[in-house]
């Protein structure tokens, strides 16, 4: 790995993004707007005294889910364009190391993810008065981590798509099952055993569990740390597998 090549790849990806205001809006504005939607959805619920608002539970999980979905979509399309435009083959014929390319991508989108997490979390706290036990810093950290998870899986999935249409088809296959099984709709320990086992091997489940840990206790629990480690391991595994799909020599 060469830090200067990694950095120039990162700035190149950010420069590309700069010329595309829609993608920037997708990253920065859309999660906050969707969060507002969730807030209004539960606006009229009647609560028994002392009960937490549904928004505090669902909105919090959304802070982990939106970044994952958005970054998965952006990364898989961007990387696919890199593959189909011939620039990837060109890069692989230069001294650029594969890790510089992948981590350059991961770093660039992580920077955007951090901005996204700050906007979304800020909206949740200051505009909609989200009240949870733990520190908001953990929420931001988990948001960034799930965004990077989306980046890693997006980079990997792009290898199995030949067109942008096929890349988008990975959304219902890779992303939606994770949303269904992450504990958003039904708590994971109340699922039937088959679904629970599947849920246990999906990375988003751990990110959402981490957010629930933050919501429940004011100081970080050991389970929170474990959740973060699991998600980080999925990120590394995704990047590693993605690097295996980058072949300098092809048939």
């Amino acid at each position, binding site marked *: 790995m060469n830090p200067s090549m990694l950095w120039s790849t990162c700035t190149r990806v950010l420069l590309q993004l700069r010329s595309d205001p829609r993608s920037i809006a997708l990253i920065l504005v859309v999660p906050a707007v969707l969060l507002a939607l969730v807030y209004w959805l539960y606006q009229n619920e009647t609560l028994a005294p002392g009960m937490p608002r549904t928004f505090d539970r669902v909105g919090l999980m959304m802070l982990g889910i939106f970044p994952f979905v958005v970054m998965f979509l952006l990364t898989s399309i961007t990387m696919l364009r890199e593959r189909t435009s011939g620039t990837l083959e060109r890069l692989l014929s230069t001294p*650029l190391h594969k890790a510089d390319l992948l981590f350059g991508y991961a770093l660039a989108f992580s920077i955007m993810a951090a901005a996204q997490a700050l906007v979304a979390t800020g909206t949740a706290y200051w505009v909609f008065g989200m009240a949870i036990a733990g520190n908001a810093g953990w929420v931001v950290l988990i948001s960034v981590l799930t965004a990077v998870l989306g980046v890693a899986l997006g980079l990997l999935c792009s290898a199995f798509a030949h067109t942008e249409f096929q890349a988008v088809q990975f959304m219902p296959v890779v992303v939606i099952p994770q949303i269904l099984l992450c504990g958003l709709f039904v708590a994971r320990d109340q699922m039937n055993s088959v679904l629970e086992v599947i849920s246990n091997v999906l990375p988003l489940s751990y990110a959402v569990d981490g957010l629930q840990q933050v919501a429940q206790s004011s100081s970080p629990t050991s389970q929170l740390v474990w959740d973060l480690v699991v998600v980080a391991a999925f990120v590394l595994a995704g990047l590693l597998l993605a690097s295996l799909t980058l072949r300098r020599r092809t048939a």
Partner: protein
Amino acid sequence: MSHRAQMPAPEPPFAPVPADPSGTHGPISVSVEGLRVCRRGVAVLANISCNIPQGRITGLLGPSGSGKTTFMRALVGVQKITAGTLTVLGRPAGDPQNRHDVGYVTQAASVYRDLSVLENVNYFGSVHGSSRQDAKAVLASVGLSVLANRKARNLSGGEFSRVSLACALVGKPALLVLDEPTVGLDPVLRADLWAQFAAMAEEGTTLLISSHVMEEASHCQTLLLLREGLLLAQLTPDQLRQRGETDDLELAFLRLIQGTPTETAEVASAAEGEDAR
């Protein structure tokens, strides 16, 4: 068309293959021995052996589908090969060190459409460790300085492919492999580019340039003629004219690739018919 008149009359249809087909005696930049590439069981390149001289322009010519791109990819080291030895700049093809020294411009211009011209060249320069100044100098050399801040997607076809070329030049390659760099360019631009290639060769860069337009062969010092994955001949443009018995390189090439004497005769008589019209 008067080339028929200049033909030496009754001589044998083909001159003997010269001992050194590259027509040069200088140092060798690329040496290929028994290169064979199969894709899905079909031989795309079959048993190719040749040398590419250093500091010269070598033309790789042949019809579409003759294996030109596969041959170039093999030299660059991005093509899996089935058999054979490729020595590029003294190292096996695809050697990590060669990634610094071999520039490759693919047929479809491979640059980032959503970056400006300068940002593209800068990025490809940075992976070779070259500076912003280098990028600007390269842009000047391909005549794109005025467009430096234009987004690549807003360029014309010719400008676009020159950006792709600039992205390869910025690494200052010792061997430059160009896949049909002049396709779709206007005559003025083509002449400019060939002049630039000649200047680069003068400075010691080895160039391998593919084309299916035979008139471009006259700009090359040595030619590799491919057909259906076979290397038909390696010769100089003059030798090609001799062997085809015409000054028209296109016709000479046609005569050569259509191989058998009867076919050659047919081509000749067809050409004669054209002359009569």
